[in-house]
Structure formats: structure tokens, C-alpha cells
């Protein structure tokens, strides 16, 4: 398991210590069929080599070959080529590693046939091939508000952020992660606001990271997390640009990586996983109400089936008298104990979810109806479960999706099973023991060194209110100081805008 505290020096990894020469580089590269070497100008000892699949052919033809062919007679040395070609980013190099790196990053190499030690490199990469143009954030949907999302190209993502916060304080620090893949990761923060401790921690963890390929930012998130043995996500991962910008302004650190449409935000605390950017576009009463519904939904989702199992198995005295008849009647012919019923239904719903995610879209609709309605109805008629349990489990499954962050809703869905099992063995007492273990586990988690249960457990004044409700515009003028930002006041709203009205001023 990869731990973040590695004190080993970054020594050369086995496969890259071999002394290379440029000739060897070209030799290895020409084994691939997409490595092309040709001479653009007839009878002239100039050669161009590149990986065909990495470069933008249009720019090659229009800006390089055209000018080369036009001014072919002016070329004596490589440096003349520099003045001919109207592109920027031209370097001349004689280091094998740099040449190899540049070729693999999508540059073309221009050199004299007889002198392979001096190579001219021009960046011509077309990194948007085969990727989507826009992302309208279907997974973090909001009715009102901008639907701009990150896409898989890092340049576009950085552009989106910098366009929205076009202040000089926005700093991008670039790192390369991965030994085989060399993915670019950019850490963004606002200087003068973000606490430098967090930036240092992130910097240190990314530089110490040793992995061969990082596929997606969310994988990176697990690799640099404090504690990877927990189902709870320790950073917020989001596709929306407005959420990333908001957290930058609050004083958090945003990490964006290439080939990934998710940005991860740290440090994150538990209550932030329940807020949606749409909350800021709605009036504060409505937004607070919805936020409370989300929190209640999550709690209900974890505990509903567990309480059903516990009450029916051990504590029947708690059931109100009028509810006793329907419950017993609906359970009368069910052969299993409540725990078996509950587990059966929960697993069915998870099967439906997993299968539904992988069905081709044409079949998906019909099977959804079959799964949801027919199976549900049929199980009740066949007396395999009781109606009440069916309602509970369906509602619990639905309400687990109310959290806006996908990773958190997964954690919630997973937590249901241990609670059901422990309720089956020890009843209500077991559920409370489970609650204690959950609370202690959450208290032990830290995100970038910040305790996960802030601002509730290490109580910070003013934090509790804004965890559960969304404060309105004048109340929100200070940054939440549990992030220890360097500057606390965001804006100072003016409070006396309207002419005075009311009984006192008649």
C-alpha cells in the first residue's frame, strides 16, 4: 500500500537509468509504426521525425512544412530554422532525455541528417483528439446556475478557472506525477488567502508520490490522502467550475490533473459534502431547508433498515399499538427473520443499481421498470418480504443519493450493511455501538491535517450554524476561519441601502 510518508530519496527507477544517446532514442522510437521520419525538402539533409499520433497535422503542414519549403534555400544551420518557422516554443537540445520527453509530449524533431546530436524541437501537440468539447455536469446537476464543467484537457480546465478568477493572486504550480505516464498535475491556490501550510503539504505529498500511472484525479486523491482505510472521501471531487472557484476563494487548494475531468479540493470537512453550489443561487431560507433535508436524508438512509431490523427482532414494545396489526399481518407469511428480508432487499437494490449502470441505454428503460416495479410487487405477493420493509428500503436507497458528491453517497450506501448486521445481533444497543464507532472513526480522520469533523467537534464559533444552514449574504462576509486563511474578510456589505421605513420613521 502506498503511504504518503516515504523518506526514500527519489532515486532513478530501474528502467530509466540506462545511459541514452539520441541515436538510441530514435532507434527505440522507430520500432513503433507511428513514428515517422522524412525529409521535407528534396535533396536537402534536413529530416523531421515525430510521432504521428501525437501531433496536430494541420499546424505541421501550414506552419512548418510550408515555411520550410518556401525558404529552403536560406537554411544553413538549425538556428536558421528558428527564424523561418513562425511558431513559438522552439528549443534546440542535445540531451537524450529531453529529446525523448519532447517527442513523447508531441513535439517534432528537426535535425540535420549528418548531425544527430543537435535537435530542434517544436511543440505541436494536439491533446484534444477524441475528447469531448464541453461538459454540462450531468452528475452535479443544478437547475439554475452555470453548467460549466471541467473536461479532460488540462489547458482548457486551467483556462476556465483563470477566466473566472482573473486576479494576479491565482498561482498555478505544476508537477509531474507518475513514472511511466508523466501526467501533469496542477495545484491552484490564491496567494495571500490560502494558508501556506496546506500548499506545502500538498506539494510535499505529490513530490513524494511514487506510482507508475495515475489514471484519474480521483485516484490521485486516494494516493495523497491521509488515511486510505476509510470509506469516506477526504477531498471533495467536483466537475463544476463554480464549485472549484468558490473553494479557491474560501482558501482551499484545488488540484487539477491532465486527462481527468474532476478537480479535487482540499482540505475538506464533513459538512462541506452536503452543500451544493446551487445553494448560493437560491434564497437562504430555501437553500437551508434543502440542506437540512440532505442531512436528514443521509441519516435516514444509513439507519432506516437497521432500525427496522432491530425493532422487529428485539424491541417490539416500541411499536405503537395501531401499527402492530399491519406489521404483523404483512410479516405473517414471510419465512425469514427480518434481517434476512432486509439484506435480501438491500442486495437486490444494489444489484439493480449496478446492472442499470451497465445496461445499454435502450434496454435500460424497460429493465428499470421490470426491476423496480414488477420485482418489488412480486416479492410482496410471493410473501418474501413485507410491504413496509419494501417502502423503507426503497426510500433509504433513494435518499442516499441526495448528497451532491458521488463518493459520499457511495460511502453512505456501504455503511448500511454493517449497521443491519449489527442490529440483527445486538438490536438497538448494537446500532448505538455502531454509531459510537462511526463517530470515533470520523473524529480520527484528517484531511490535509485538518480534522474531518470541524467545525463541529473541535468547536469553532460560527462554524456550526453555517454547517447546517446557508447563511445569507451579509452574514457570509468572512471566510470560515477554521481553514486558517491569511485574510479573513471577503467583503463588507453595506447595510443601510434603503431609505428608512417603518413605524419609527413616520
Amino acid at each position, binding site marked *: 500500500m502506498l503511504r504518503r510518508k516515504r523518506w526514500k530519496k527519489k532515486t532513478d527507477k530501474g528502467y530509466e537509468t540506462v545511459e541514452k544517446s539520441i541515436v538510441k532514442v530514435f532507434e527505440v522510437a522507430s520500432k513503433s509504426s507511428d513514428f515517422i521520419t522524412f525529409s521535407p525538402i528534396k535533396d536537402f539533409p534536413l529530416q523531421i521525425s515525430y510521432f504521428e499520433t501525437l501531433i496536430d497535422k494541420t499546424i505541421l503542414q501550414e506552419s512548418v512544412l510550408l515555411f520550410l519549403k518556401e525558404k529552403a534555400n536560406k537554411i544553413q544551420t538549425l538556428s536558421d530554422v528558428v527564424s523561418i518557422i513562425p511558431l513559438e516554443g522552439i528549443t534546440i537540445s542535445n540531451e537524450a532525455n529531453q529529446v525523448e520527453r519532447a517527442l513523447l509530449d508531441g513535439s517534432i524533431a528537426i535535425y540535420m541528417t549528418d548531425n544527430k546530436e543537435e535537435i530542434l524541437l517544436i511543440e505541436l501537440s494536439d491533446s484534444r483528439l477524441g475528447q469531448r468539447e464541453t461538459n454540462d455536469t450531468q452528475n452535479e446537476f443544478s437547475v439554475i446556475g452555470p453548467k460549466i464543467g471541467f473536461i479532460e484537457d488540462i489547458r482548457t480546465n486551467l483556462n476556465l478557472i483563470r477566466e473566472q478568477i482573473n486576479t494576479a493572486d491565482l498561482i498555478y504550480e505544476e508537477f509531474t506525477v507518475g513514472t511511466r505516464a508523466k501526467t501533469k498535475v496542477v495545484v491552484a491556490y490564491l496567494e495571500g488567502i490560502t494558508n501556506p501550510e496546506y500548499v506545502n503539504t500538498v506539494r510535499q505529498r505529490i513530490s513524494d508520490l511514487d506510482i507508475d500511472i495515475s489514471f484519474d484525479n480521483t485516484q490521485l486523491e486516494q494516493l495523497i490522502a491521509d488515511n486510505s482505510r476509510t470509506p469516506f472521501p477526504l477531498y471533495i471531487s467536483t466537475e463544476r467550475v463554480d464549485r472549484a472557484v468558490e473553494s479557491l476563494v474560501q482558501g482551499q487548494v484545488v488540484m487539477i490533473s491532465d486527462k481527468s475531468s474532476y478537480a479535487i479540493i482540499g482540505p475538506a470537512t464533513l459538512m462541506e459534502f452536503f452543500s451544493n453550489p446551487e445553494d448560493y443561487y437560491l434564497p437562504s431560507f430555501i437553500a437551508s431547508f434543502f440542506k437540512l433535508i440532505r442531512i436528514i436524508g443521509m441519516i435516514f438512509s444509513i439507519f432506516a433498515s437497521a432500525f427496522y431490523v432491530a425493532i422487529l427482532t*428485539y*424491541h417490539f*414494545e*416500541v*411499536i*405503537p*399499538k395501531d401499527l402492530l396489526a399491519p406489521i404483523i399481518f404483512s410479516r405473517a407469511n414471510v419465512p425469514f427473520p427480518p434481517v434476512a428480508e432486509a439484506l435480501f432487499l438491500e442486495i437486490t437494490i444494489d444489484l439493480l443499481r449496478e446492472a442499470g449502470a451497465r445496461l445499454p441505454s435502450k434496454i435500460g428503460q424497460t429493465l428499470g421498470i421490470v426491476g423496480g416495479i414488477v420485482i418489488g410487487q412480486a416479492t410482496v405477493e410471493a410473501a418474501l418480504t413485507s410491504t413496509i420493509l419494501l417502502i423503507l428500503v426503497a426510500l433509504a436507497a433513494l435518499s442516499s443519493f441526495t448528497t451532491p458528491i458521488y463518493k459520499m453517497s457511495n460511502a453512505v450506501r456501504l455503511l448500511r450493511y454493517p449497521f443491519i448486521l449489527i442490529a440483527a*445481533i*445486538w*438490536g*438497538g*444497543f*448494537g*446500532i*448505538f*455501538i455502531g454509531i*459510537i*464507532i462511526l*463517530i*470515533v472513526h470520523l*473524529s*480520527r480522520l484528517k484531511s490535509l491535517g485538518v480534522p474531518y*469533523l470541524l467545525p463541529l*467537534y*473541535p*468547536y469553532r464559533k460560527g462554524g456550526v450554524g453555517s454547517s447546517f444552514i446557508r447563511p445569507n449574504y451579509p452574514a457570509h462576509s468572512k471566510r470560515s476561519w477554521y481553514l486558517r486563511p491569511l485574510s479573513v474578510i471577503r467583503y463588507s456589505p453595506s447595510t443601510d441601502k434603503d431609505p428608512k421605513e417603518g413605524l419609527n420613521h413616520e
Partner: protein
Amino acid sequence: MNANINAKNMVSPYLLFFLVHAAQTGVSVLSFQTHIIKGAGHDAWIPVLVFGLLMPIIFFMMLYILKGASSGDILSFHKDIFGKYIGSLLNIVLAIYFSLVSLTAIHTYIDILQIWVFDGIASWEFSLLFTIIIFYIISGGFRIVTAIAFWGVVIPSFLLLSLVYLLNFTEPSYLFPMFELVWKDFFTSAKEAAPLYFGMETALVFLPFVKNKKKASKWGYFALLYTTLLYTIITVITFMFFTQEKLEKLSWPTLMMIKIIRLPFLERFEFIFIFTWLLVVIPVACIYLWSAIRSIKLTFPQIKPTFVLGSLLVVFFYINSFLIDIKFSFLIGNVVNYSGLVVLFGYIPFLFIIAVIKNQFKKKDKNKEKGV
């Protein structure tokens, strides 16, 4: 004064409130009313109140003792005053006392569970669960113990609202005539009320872990007053709720009071109450056990604390599972009550006097130095 504690392991000053309050409220709140009416009858809320108001004095003595200790806790104080060997012996005695209190709390709670909720389930299952939880909490260090103390005060405070429901059934005439008690009755009831207030002697061990002692002590006094107020209110409501003669027959008066609450969706509220009470008992067990382990750790530095924790928990598990006879409950309960009284009212004032004398000597030395 806290030379050897990493600042990362320390907690904020206001958390002392939660630590002290959580360590005091434990299992005895559920059954103390039957014991205190033995002397003073329906006036027994007065000894509860007065006893609670005496506690800040003892707390002040404790703070004074710890101010003079070399690393801020009582273990180093023992070593300073009594020398290395006797000091270590006293530390071990203290550790044994703390473990016994922790054990009593768990034992009594398992008793309650078996009487009120589950009557067919063996004790070893509950002991096992407790062992697992306590291990998980204490192995996280003092910050996690404080976290559970915090949640153990915040979450059960919702139960206080249930007291409002009980006001419907109260009858003030049961409290009158007031102030009928004589001194002898007062002392009998006070002795029975004493186990309620045990809990702050653990501050002798964990106080160095709290930042900013001046601010923190303010919170400590506040916690003591809050506990006193809470206990008095519960006592008064109990006395207005039950007649004295019925109270004599009940072994768990608070739970019998809660039994009457009926919510629209829950017919017996006492199950929720008993289970939430778990959150009140666990901090008691954890804080005491943590203090015991720390005493042992500072006396025998070569043993790893997790190992001590593991072995103590194995002993607890064995005792709670197999020594479940009634005579053991009585025995442990009485031992703990007497030891607690001795520690709070005998040992701490004794150490206080020693600390005062020591301070006088120090002053004299300083004056001598200045004079010469």
C-alpha cells in the same frame, strides 16, 4: 510545566468543560435517588446541592497541587515529594483505583441492559462490544478520548428535553415541608450522593494535555457547577414525581420516570434513553482507563501503552463476562465508593497541605537568596 507533551496532542481549553462533565455523569445518575433518601427523605436534594457546591473547592486544591508539580500532573508530583519508589507505588495505586472505577461503570451498565432491555443475552457479548469500542477509542490517543467526551455531552443533552414532558406528572406537595432535615441525616445523604460527583480526580492526570491552564480552569469550574445544577434539577423532579415510599422500592428511579413518556411513533421511550446513555457511560470508562494507562506508562516507560491497554481490557472482559454474581457488583461498588471518598476528601487535601508547605519552603529559599 508541560515539558514533555507535544503541542499536537493537546486540546483546546474549552474542552475541559466536556471532559470534567462527561467524567462525572455516569451510571450513578440512574439509581442515586433511592440511596439518598435514606437519611434526609424528601429534603435530600439539599445535600446534593451543597455537596456539589463543595466540589469547586477541591478542584481549586487540585489545580494548586498541579501548579507546583514538575511536569504538571500528579504522577510527577508523587515522584517529587515522595521519592522515586514510593511515588511510583502511589502511581500504581492510583492506576488501580482508576481501572476499578472504569470497570464498575461498564459492569453496572451491562447490568442495566440485562434487566431492562435484553433478558436472554449473555454478558460476554456486551463485554466484547465494550472492549472493542474502548480499545478503538483509547488507542487513538487523548484527542479521541476528548472527542468522545464532547459527543458524550452534546448528544445526550437532547434527552434533557424529556424532563420537560415529565413536568406534567409532578406534584409539588411531595417536596414540602422543606428543610426538615437534621445534620445527621444531611451527612448520611451526602455520603450516598458522593459517587455522583466522582470524576474530576482524573484531571490530576490529564491536565497537562490541556492548553492554556488559566482559561481552562474557568471552564472546569463551570463544568462542576453545571453538573451540580443538573443533578439538583433531576433530584427535585424525581421527588416531585414519586412519593417517598414508592421511591424506596425502586432500584432505577430515573428509568422508571422515563418509562412514562410516550411519543406518537415510539411507545416506549426508555429504550432510546438507555441506549443514548451508552454515550454517557463510555466517556467515563475511557477517561478513567486512559488515566490509569498513563499512570502506568509514566511509571514503567519501557512497556508499550497499547500492550497495557490490551491486557487491562482482557481483564475487564473476563470480569464482566464471568464474575456476574450480585455479590461482585456490590463488592466492587462499595470499594469504589469508599476509595473515591478517600481520594477526594482525604488524599487531595493532604497533598494540598504538602504543596502549600513546599511552596512556603520555596519562598523562603527565594527570599534567602534575595536577601543574601
